[in-house]
């Protein structure tokens, strides 16, 4: 994974070195020097912060890569568990926002980790940190709205419908009309636990609430 989230550092470096003068035809820099880590992106407290929010000490990671090898997400995405733990060790906090949400939480990595670190828990800790420092990310809010509306975090795509047809499976049932009661219970639960407050979603306030949710759901599906 390339560390892409350091525009300030990039700008600073390029002006310092005078390399901002060298421009390609498109106006971007010809020489990309910001692929060099300077330590400016390093947050020395990140490791301790992860421990505070329930993760283990990532400094003990041997970087053996066993977690990546057993991770279903690493297999299908550019994110490699071991690599993310390395970036935790380095204290590259910024890059983490939104990435740890991709972890499916299957805990296979924990089962195989010789250093007994439990990367899945580390990612949960980072989610806590992110929520406290930056708030709940947009896509979580959006999918919550979808859950309250349809009972699904993600609306099944046409692809899935086609696959099911091809495999001779029955079409997915439309859960909404039959499970209204469940949805209202879910909503009560969200409100009771103040989850709605945390994600800044005023749900259940008559038609307005539903409309808001629908709007958000619509945005998410765009």
């Amino acid at each position, binding site marked *: 994974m390339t560390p892409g989230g350091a525009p300030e550092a990039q700008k600073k470096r390029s002006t310092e070195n005078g390399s901002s003068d060298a421009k390609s035809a498109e106006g971007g820099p010809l020489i990309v020097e910001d692929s060099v880590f300077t330590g400016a992106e390093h947050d020395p407290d990140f490791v301790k912060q992860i421990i505070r929010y329930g993760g283990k000490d990532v400094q*003990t990671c041997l970087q053996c890569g066993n977690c990546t090898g*057993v991770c279903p997400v690493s*297999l299908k995405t550019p994110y490699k568990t071991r690599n993310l733990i390395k970036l935790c060790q380095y204290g590259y906090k910024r890059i983490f926002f939104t990435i740890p949400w991709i972890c499916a939480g299957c805990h296979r990595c924990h089962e195989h980790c*010789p250093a007994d670190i439990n990367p899945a828990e580390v990612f949960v800790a980072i989610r806590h940190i992110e929520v406290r420092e930056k708030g709940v990310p947009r896509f979580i809010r959006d999918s919550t709205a979808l859950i309250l509306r349809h009972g699904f975090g993600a609306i099944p795509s046409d692809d899935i419908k086609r696959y099911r047809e091809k495999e001779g499976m029955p079409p997915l049932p439309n859960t909404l009309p039959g499970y209204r009661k469940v949805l209202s219970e879910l909503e009560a639960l969200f409100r009771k636990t103040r989850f709605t407050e945390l994600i800044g979603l005023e749900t259940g306030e008559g038609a307005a609430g539903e409309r808001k949710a629908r709007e958000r759901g619509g945005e998410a599906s765009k």
Partner: protein
Amino acid sequence: MSENQGAGCRVQGAGDDGTPGTRHPAPGTRRVGVFVCHCGSNIGGVVDCPAVAEYASGLRDVAVAKANMYTCSTVGQEEIKKQVKEHGLDRILVASCTPRLHEPTFRRVAEEAGVNPYLVHMVNLREQCSWVHAADHATATEKAKDLVRMGVARIRRLEPLSARELGVERRVLVIGGGIAGIQASLDLAAQGIGVVLVERTPSIGGRMAQLDKTFPTGDCAICVLAPKMVEVLHTPGIRLLTYTEVREVSGFAGNFDVRLERKSRYVDEDKCVGCGACSEKCPVSVPNEFDESMGKRKAIYVPFPQAAPLKYTLDSKNCIHFKTGKCGLCKKVCPVGAVDFDMKPEEVRLRVGAVIVATGFDPYVPHIRGYYGYKEYPNVITALELERLINASGPTRGEVLRPSDGKTPRRIAFAQCVGSRNWKSTSNKYCSKVCCMYTMKLAQLLKEHYSDMSVSVYYIDIRAAGKGFEEFYHKVRSVGGVEYIRGRPARVLEDPATHNLTIRAEETLLNKITEREYDLLVLSIGMDPPEGIENLQRLLGISRSPDGFFQEVHPKLRPVDTARDGIFIAGCAQGPKDIPDTVAQAKAAASSAAAMLVRGKVTVEPLTAFVDEALCEGCGLCVTVCPYGAPRIVDTKEGKRSRVEEALCHGCGTCAASCPRLAIACRGFSDEQLASEAAEAFGGGADEEAR
């Protein structure tokens, strides 16, 4: 703080009426010399040493007090002797560093000056004062005065003691007949010290005998080991007892009483000539432990051709005669009548002066923990199993053949750190130290035997620290063409038809998940503490470190000593190590044991616990708490009483502190001596009143 202020006032007083440096109390009282050491700037840079000396000179019974630059130096020592002569001192108090460093020095100085060495007391002004109060010179000086005053109170009550000397048995028990035990035995015998070498399996040789070649030089393991094994057999000073276990060890350094059990091998060792006729006729075939069960042996067998002694052993568990009472072919064919079905275990009792524990290691067994399909997929084997396959005297005569189909594999993978460097409870946390290197050696051998074979090594880190090791690694990668893949195998899947194995792993340096197919997977297993180590630990009364191996007293300066005097450890019994380190430790242990025995006697420190039998009720609490097994309960006319074996006692004081009847005291640390010191600390000392 109030004590310090009190002390400060008294210094003032001492300065007023006492003559600094010398003071002569009335004759007939004790004559204490106080020597305050600057220790360069270690103490002198913080504590005002001359002021402390001046203060000390005013204390009761202090005949002279001096401050020196280095009391431990020759000049400092001569100064002590001079003052003893000049002032007729009978007690010496040195206020300097910890007694752990220089107590022996000052005891010797006292002895040379004609003062009883146990009338020397040390006050620690360095570790317990100047080093911890470096920021506050004035208070540090006050504390130093307090400490010296306490020390003087203590030394006034010390009694002269003398060390006892006991004779020793010039013979060593060596437990374990691997390369460590063999080397230690030979070294001891060469110094004219008797050796009893005990091995629990039928032959000496140990793990080294199982190996094919050794890293990094590629010497044949058995070729260099076998001559030593033969030497053991032919050295008159070594009594070799194979198929024998240690059952009891009692006594103390110089005089251990040992009970051994010679298990019955059902073959008379004196008669057996090792012809092998019995084994040839034996109809039972079972997996051979020596070949890591890759090959077979008979129920009556020698584990390997070079076995020493070359005496057959009957495995009664698998023998038809022992199961059904029939067969008996071996007995019929034996030309010398050595087979004896009625043989009984034999007990051997002997006395030795020292014990060397060289019990080695057991290979980590991955199938208990289901590692990478070991024992589930036939083509997953351990490195020790590969050693036996590639060994010319092994079950395949040196051919590497896949267990599933008996064909030569073309693609071999090694998985490193199996059972090592793993913080899960099912594995060992430590690095087993040898696996990186033996994998290189095996990879090299495979490449030499089969030039078209591809060898890949999945590793986390490569540890090639040792003489010629990194060079060997370089050679294996370049000339050997061995492929190193950085990443721990994540999954091993078997194709049920071909029994080939697919390894999925992250190649961490590429940041890519790879899947590759191999014909054979070799697990580079680590070292476990050997089976039965808990029992032996209990028998010997020595300790083990958290890794499960025996614990040395000091990792750097006393690497082969145990906390129990006269018992030494060598080789993998102390922790994973390679052959050169093992041999070095064996030599060290032999040398340490010899140093004790050649002197012919052991000194028993008089600072030991003793029991006042009038107070003792024989409750036995002291026996429970003693870490050295020194006290025991004996029957006397008055009933049960505790007695402390002085040669075993280390004077730790645990028994004295725990005795509910206050019947136990430690010489040099009596209640009175300690209480007087404590009383001085809190300003209520008798000495203070006397002044």
